């Protein structure tokens, strides 16, 4: 294994340990709210409460560190990654369409229900 591949492997495990353990996602569910996972297998709205984070995948045979796949969340059967939010253009309070002003690194995105 080349030094670059070894570096990529180490970087992957560091990321996986922090972000990508499904057990961590399960363990940290709030017990005060209504968090649960549906066991029905229903294809519709089965994600509720804290969602499962999908483990990262990496191709260690590739020297390119960019082969590491970003961590994603599984919501209602869809795998959602951060880019789904980083490229949104929405209406601002001035009535203009604006690209969502995220930092690009550390962001909290809250989807409210309708305004009423």
């Amino acid at each position, binding site marked *: 294994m080349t030094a670059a591949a070894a570096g990529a492997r180490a970087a992957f495990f560091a990321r996986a340990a922090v972000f990508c353990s499904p057990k961590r996602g399960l363990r*940290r569910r709030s017990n005060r709210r209504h968090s649960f996972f549906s066991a029905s297998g229903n294809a519709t709205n089965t994600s509720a409460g804290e969602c499962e984070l999908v483990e990262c995948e990496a191709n260690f045979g590739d020297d390119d560190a960019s082969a590491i796949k970003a961590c994603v969340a599984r919501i209602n059967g*869809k795998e959602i990654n951060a880019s789904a939010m980083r490229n949104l253009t929405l209406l601002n309070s001035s009535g203009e369409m604006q690209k969502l*002003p995220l930092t690009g690194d550390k962001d*909290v995105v809250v*989807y409210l229900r309708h305004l009423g």
Partner: protein
Amino acid sequence: MANKRSDIQKLGGDIVFISVSPTAEKLQKFLELNPNLPKDRVFADNSKTFDAYKAVGFGNLTDVDKNTKPEMKPPGFSLQDWWKYITNVIALSPIDPNEKLTGPPEGVLRLGGTFVLSGNDIAYAWADALPGAHPEPEDVLKAATNAWGSA
């Protein structure tokens, strides 16, 4: 979550809010009624197909699995809050004034959720099971702290 913004900023991050509204006027009214929300961090999905919500997999209230329907809790409004709600709910509703209704408008049924992003990673994700079944703000802040480390 709005009152956690300063804590999030101390960690080097920031927060944005997304809602459903067909017009900027409704969004402005909402911000007027909720002065604690930072105006430049609140946005509306005004698409007829709710693209921003569908992009992250959130469902509708009508899709909730009845077998696992969580317990509903009252919102904890004061009398003043209830008055504000009742007198503004129609004005804020996600109904396009130019659209003829043939049933409950889909915007009313949309469910939300919360994400903590760290670069290209999703560090935390929550899908509301029902209106009001949002995560504890403290839990979201903890997830952000775990993912980002202290600033």
